[in-house]
């Protein structure tokens, strides 16, 4: 074999040497814009000779008359041009409109859908969703089969769940790996956690919201293991590439601006005061005393806490491609107001991308940089709010006759007016993402690339509940409580790769191999304060200053008393453990010194203060390689391997090997295939990928640390001592997902109907679970790889049909549908999950992780109605054969172009899943109205008694099937004169969430209440639980894009 290859090589090389040469020059231009296209491959057919165009599209090549130039450029139709006697060959290239020629980033390289061997997808900016977009995932929601994108709530900047081909992992983050311009991002949040100042916690915001959607050129998705394995241990959930816009054209200024109006899309039908059914008579109906509940006012509290929100965003960019320097600079500002009072997101971004070539274009240096600041304001809404609920819960249950006076005494209940007046939470995050690459052509076909990536951010969250807050949890009333959380993230990437392209034998070999090292540092401070005696009504700024000032003062004193680094500090009038009272203490934790030191605390404006520092660093070191070999552009082979070493594992399992292989056959290239098929391609692949996200820092070694610190409801501070936080376990290892996939891509009728059909089967094993430790142990839980399997099996169909294709009118229909079946196998235990919250619902849960069931399977009481006394007829809690995971996921788009007008509509739908209506369970029961809390009108006629228990029941489990008209947009390209101010001017209008078809009785079935990890039952994530979710808005946007 080696002999054969060698001899073939010599033949090829001989061919080069024998060529009779003269020089031909030319310029390759974009048919659309007339601008030169840089980087176009100009090759001599049947040889390995070739060149690429320079920055303005020019090339020069040695050829002989009888040869033919093959001009290829991804995204454009390939052209073959016989040289003949010409000395100048100018070529105008037309974009390839076939879906299959779409460029897709595959990691350490790019290809087209047509040439890819794996299940990959790409969405370019022209197909992005419009309107108010908080984060890049929303741009491609519903555009791709097998990719389920769910916003966890309607809050600006809220987290987004992205699932590619089902849910693999039990406790890990199931989001894919995001790679921005070649830099893989850490999956962790960059916004500091929010302290619980009375309403529990929320899983925090979306780590990708630092990117302005206007700066994004395209999003590519690797769906199967054969393509994703090049990212090895982080690829189990797929890979999503975000490519930002680069400098192009001869210099153009672009301005875009839009304004949006949002309102709550839905509200509950609550009992009224002046309109029936009447609240007061309902109180009487359930045994209460209406007169005692009548406070004389008439408020629909839902209207009090929501608002019509006006948002706007602006983006200004300048882009130019030139020999000297190609660059694009942009500045964006966006102010998104939430439809709930006191919530919103403000984003300021600056981007600068540049690239320049040196050494006769052999060296290309590129810089991509983002600088951003995101300010998030959050309303008092918590995914783990206690039994009284949060702002929305109180708006639903508040007595409508209460006044809007924040100081009104509700007698134990939360008042929406009081909450709005006495809570503020602001988070801000500054982030820099810079990536510098040097691309060097060492020899023909051989290139080297060095990438340096830096991702640095600093996030700060301050949450305040004032002393005038009423009935907040955690001893807030009369005292006030504030949280200050800081997180600094510093991730660095060094990556070196070589790529090699060679005609080899009958085919073409394309290889890349490299080394990568990435470090992830996270450190910060979690501090809180209690007892704000200086607070004057409404002065949040003063309260914040008191809190931050006290923390800074104590931080300094603690460092002094510790003589250097320390872990914790605290000060207050009631230090427990027999320590000196009225003092400050510092817990020092270094290998030289472990001690609790005391110091005299100065007079502060906050009675009790605690702070706890953390400092984690994880490292990942990898080698990777991929080889593509294509024969006659018909048979495509791909093999990849990645070897990852991670600091999260002990010596025994520190390194993971993740191989994959794939094969594709482009049958349409075969002579025997009828011309009917423009494209017909079969693909199959198999690969192994990993996941280590579910495992935190340092869970494989025995570590000691001071215990958790907090301020009690009465301001008391228990001084922690030390204890082990983990046991040594050198056998901890990666979660592993293997995936087999099979697919067909096709295009027929002159490329007018194209699509793909895919089948896949994934098995995730060695599940990282936080299991009950075999007691006695230092912890109740221990991380262990569990010998169970999560299986995801399904298929996907995507179709695109260009129904009308003419000079003036184009109409296309595209849609996708996917089905996924999820099941956990070989699992011995049963782990409860899915906490249900609300009055009388402590310890209640709705899901169990168990063998033979899908993840997020409901385990609830069957419900057979109410008996004659109005008590529920109930049974034991049991599996009811329903899961929160959608079985069917689909998207459907219509695009119409008529002259300068364009119109698009996009529908999304999910089916086969169930939503637990925790809001109804907690608030809309007969027991609630019997206690004087407002309810929805249907409660009056349900037959339920006021003394009935509302346990977790099938009664609150509802189908989550829905179809949503997610987006409708109409745009008009204003005709511009060639000498005018504008090169291009487009105005558009857009409507989001225009209607929703569903049987779900809550406000919106697309929900997922998501408390922070520590508030999750057994730390298992939840899905499908609707507990006072942030109402989803209906949004109308008008905007313009202008190019000068």
């Amino acid at each position, binding site marked *: 074999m080696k002999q054969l290859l060698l001899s073939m090589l010599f033949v090829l090389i001989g061919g080069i040497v024998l060529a009779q040469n003269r020089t031909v020059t030319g310029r390759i231009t974009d048919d659309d814009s007339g601008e030169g296209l840089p980087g176009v491959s100009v090759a001599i057919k049947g040889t390995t000779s070739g060149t690429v165009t320079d920055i303005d599209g020019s090339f020069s090549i040695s050829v002989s008359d009888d040869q033919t130039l093959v001009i290829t450029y991804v995204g454009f139709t390939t052209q073959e041009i016989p040289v003949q006697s010409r000395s100048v060959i100018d070529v105008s290239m037309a974009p390839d409109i076939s879906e299959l020629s779409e460029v897709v980033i595959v990691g350490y390289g790019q290809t087209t859908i047509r040439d890819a061997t794996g299940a990959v997808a790409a969405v370019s900016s022209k197909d992005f969703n419009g309107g108010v977009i908080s984060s890049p995932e929303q741009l491609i929601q519903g555009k791709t089969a097998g990719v389920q994108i769910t916003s966890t709530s309607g809050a600006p900047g809220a987290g987004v769940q992205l699932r590619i081909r089902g849910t693999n992992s039990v406790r890990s983050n199931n989001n894919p790996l995001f790679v921005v311009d070649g830099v893989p991002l850490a999956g962790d949040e960059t916004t500091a956690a929010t302290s619980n100042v009375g309403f529990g916690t929320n899983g925090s915001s979306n780590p990708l919201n630092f990117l302005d959607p206007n700066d994004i050129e395209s999003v590519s998705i690797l769906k199967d293991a054969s393509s994703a394995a090049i990212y090895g241990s982080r690829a189990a959930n797929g890979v999503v590439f975000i490519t930002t816009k680069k400098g192009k054209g001869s210099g153009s200024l672009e301005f875009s601006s839009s304004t949006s109006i949002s309102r709550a899309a839905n509200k509950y039908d609550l009992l009224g005061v002046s309109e029936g059914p009447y609240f007061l008579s309902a109180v009487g109906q359930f045994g209460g005393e209406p007169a005692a509940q009548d406070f004389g006012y008439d408020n629909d509290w839902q209207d009090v806490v929501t608002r019509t929100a006006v948002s706007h965003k602006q983006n200004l960019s300048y882009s130019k491609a030139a020999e000297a320097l190609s660059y694009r600079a942009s500045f964006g500002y966006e102010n998104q107001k939430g439809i709930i009072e006191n919530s919103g997101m403000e984003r300021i971004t600056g981007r600068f991308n540049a690239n320049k070539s040196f050494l006769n274009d052999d060296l290309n240096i590129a810089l991509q940089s983002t600088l951003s600041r995101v300010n998030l304001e959050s309303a008092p809404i918590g995914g783990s709010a206690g039994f009284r609920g949060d702002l929305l819960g109180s708006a639903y249950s508040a007595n409508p006759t209460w006044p809007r006076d924040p100081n009104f005494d509700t007698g134990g209940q939360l008042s929406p007016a009081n909450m709005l007046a006495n809570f503020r939470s602001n988070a801000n995050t500054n982030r820099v993402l810079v990536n510098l690459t040097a691309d060097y052509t060492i020899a023909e076909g051989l290139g080297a690339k060095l990438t340096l990536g830096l991702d640095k951010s600093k996030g700060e969250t301050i949450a305040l509940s004032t002393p005038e807050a009423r009935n907040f949890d955690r001893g807030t009333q009369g005292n006030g409580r504030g949280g200050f959380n800081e997180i600094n993230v510093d991730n660095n990437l060094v990556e070196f790769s070589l790529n090699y392209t060679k005609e080899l034998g009958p085919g073409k070999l394309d290889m890349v191999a490299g080394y990568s090292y990435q470090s992830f540092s996270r450190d910060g401070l979690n501090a809180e304060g209690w007892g704000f005696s200086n607070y004057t009504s409404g002065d949040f700024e003063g309260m914040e200053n008191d809190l931050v000032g006290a923390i800074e003062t104590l931080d300094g004193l603690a460092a002094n008393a510790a003589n250097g680094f320390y872990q914790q500090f605290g000060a207050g009038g*009631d230090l427990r453990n027999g320590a000196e009272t009225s003092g400050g203490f510092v817990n020092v934790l270094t*290998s030289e010194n472990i001690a609790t030191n005391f110091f005299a605390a100065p007079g502060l404006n906050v009675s009790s203060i605690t702070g706890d520092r953390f400092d984690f660093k994880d490292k990942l070191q990898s080698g990777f390689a991929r080889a593509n070999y294509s024969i006659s552009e018909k048979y495509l082979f791909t093999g990849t391997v990645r070897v990852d070493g991670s600091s999260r594992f002990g010596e025994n399992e520190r390194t993971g090997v993740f191989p994959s292989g794939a094969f594709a056959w482009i049958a349409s290239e075969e002579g025997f295939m009828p011309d009917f098929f423009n494209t017909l391609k079969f693909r199959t692949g198999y690969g192994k990928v990993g996941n280590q996200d579910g495992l935190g820092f340092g869970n494989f070694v025995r570590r000691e640390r001071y215990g958790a610190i907090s301020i009690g409801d009465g301001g008391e501070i228990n001084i922690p*001592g030390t204890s082990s936080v983990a046991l040594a376990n050198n056998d901890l290892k990666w979660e592993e997902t293997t995936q087999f996939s099979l697919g067909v891509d096709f295009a027929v009728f002159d490329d007018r109907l194209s699509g793909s059909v895919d089948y896949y089967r994934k098995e995730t094993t060695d599940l990282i679970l936080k299991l009950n*430790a075999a007691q006695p142990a230092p912890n109740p839980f221990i991380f262990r790889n569990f010998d169970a399997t999560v299986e995801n099996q399904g298929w996907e169909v995507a179709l695109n049909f260009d129904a009308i294709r003419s000079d003036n009118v184009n109409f296309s229909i595209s849609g996708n549908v996917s089905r996924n079946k999820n099941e956990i196998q070989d699992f011995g235990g049963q782990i409860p999950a899915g906490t249900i919250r609300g009055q009388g*619902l402590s310890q209640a849960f709705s899901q169990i992780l168990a063998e033979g069931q899908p993840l997020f399977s409901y385990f609830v009481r069957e419900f057979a109605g109410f008996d004659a006394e109005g008590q529920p007829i109930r049974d034991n809690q049991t599996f009811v054969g329903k899961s929160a995971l959608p079985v069917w996921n689909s998207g459907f788009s219509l695009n119409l172009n008529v002259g300068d007008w364009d119109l698009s509509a996009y529908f999304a739908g999910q089916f086969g899943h169930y939503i637990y209506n925790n809001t109804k369970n907690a608030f809309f029961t*007969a027991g609630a109205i019997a206690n004087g809390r407002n309810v929805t009108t249907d409660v009056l006629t349900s037959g339920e008694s006021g003394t009935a228990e509302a346990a977790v029941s099938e009664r609150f489990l509802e189908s989550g099937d829905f179809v949503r008209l997610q987006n409708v947009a109409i745009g008009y390209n204003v005709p511009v004169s060639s000498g005018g101010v504008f090169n291009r001017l487009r105005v558009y209008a857009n409507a989001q969430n225009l209607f929703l078809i569903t049987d779900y009785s809550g406000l919106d079935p697309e929900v997922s209440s998501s408390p922070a990890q520590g508030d999750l039952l057994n730390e298992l994530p939840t899905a499908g639980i609707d507990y006072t979710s942030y109402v989803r808005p209906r949004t109308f946007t008008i905007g313009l894009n202008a190019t000068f």
Partner: protein
Amino acid sequence: MVLIKFNRIYNFLNNTSMTSQLKYFKRFDVLALALVFVTSSCSLDIDESDSLITPESSGSFTGVEDPEAQVNEIFNAIRGNLEAQDNYFAMQEVSTDELLVPTRGTDWGDNGIWRTLHAHTWTPSHAYVLNVWNQFNQEIFRASEVIDSRSNGSATDVAQARFARAYSMFIIMDNYGQVPFREPDAAADVNPSVLTRTEAYNMIIADLTSALPDLPASGPGVGADRPTKASANFLLAKAYLNAHVYNGSGAASAADMQEVVDAVDAIEDDGFALQAGYFDLFTDAIDTETIWFVTASTGNNIWNGLHYNQTSSDNEGGGWNGFTTLSEFYDLFEGDPSTNNVGDGQEERRGWVPDGSNADATNLGIGFGFLVGQQWGSTGYDDDGVPTGFEALNDRPGNPLVFTKELPGLVGNNERNGIRVIKYHPVNGAFAGHKIIFRYSDAHLMRAEAMLRMGGSATAEVNELRAIRGANALGGVAESDLLDERGRELYIEYWRRNDLVRFGQFTKNWSFKDGGSVGDVNRNLYPIPSNALLSNPNLVQNEGY
């Protein structure tokens, strides 16, 4: 590695001209050097930035870094375990005739977790059964780490750790009948061995005996939030008193009972004594009865039963309207069976409920002990937290707040059903940080019981206590009288289940107990939690579960 491979491939594919090859290699070497430079600095070892890392591989133990700090954390954890109204407290009290948590409409359903305790229908998946198992076993392990000689703990640290281990192991042994044990050396994948009840009992006695000399001999006073000789003697007395339950003999041995008497005598010698003024004991003032307290808030015990409209200035949100007692327990006390206002003939320990004549700032309108009938409360509080006035309270729907003796059942209750029980009073604050765990009157009654079980009489000792509490003397004290007296003196102080089991009464019938569980002796032990069985195959489920 990667580099070498690439050199070869490169070499193999580019053997055209020697000169160009050399040229390329020069370029290549620069990059190679850069790569070597980059990689040499990369280690995958974990940094000691956040916590102290024990440098050994799994399976060997070189001691804890700071034994004193770890002892602090152990007692922090024990305090946390004892602070809550659920878990350990609920398993000892809600499972008995002293307390129940009725479901009131939608309130306090809590997935049935309270009802199954009271009805004796709990299962191995009951959350409290799991939590208590985890909580106290965890402290056993942490204490073992400190006790291990490789930790080089001071004599005081080790003695405190031994007490902590004995106390935690006592709870596991008493509740579950078997105790898993892990050596500090054992790696995470080692399945802990399992001590029988007798082995665990012996280990508890040994720990306490060896801790005694190194514990301080403090009498009543400050500092009793850490174990003293008296605390160790108290726990020894508890162990000996119950020995016949643990070793299965069924009958108390005179030797064990003598140990009880000796241990209580030793406590008395340290200066502890009965003290008059029953409800003054449950404050943070120094008294002669408190042997061991934890600096836990008492708010849970105050507010878990009080109604939402019963408030104090440090809790204007009011109570949580949960826990009540059974009328049959209330009826154990002398006094008017239907009301408990001043002058109803009750003994001191039953407490009293204010009415319009005596609701004032010293009681906030909230009673002491057993709250039955119409309740009073403050109309509000001024800026200094002083009550603005007092009124007869209503419940939330507007009905007069009259606590009833009887309940319709475990479910279907309104806000007013059931007698409430409080020992710590809101007027003393919920955050006083003084929750009594070992009390001398318990020791006093233990000695009386030991004397009775040795064939002597307990009457004098019991009547000594009753006299101080303002109760009529008893003519004679049989076993059942002693159990009742312990109920009257020690209600909601964590011991009711232990007492009922020792007197063979835990299986008897009481209101709302499930008929199927009456007489089921297997209920004397809690099941091994199902999750624990999964995690350690050495454990065998207790009979009947």
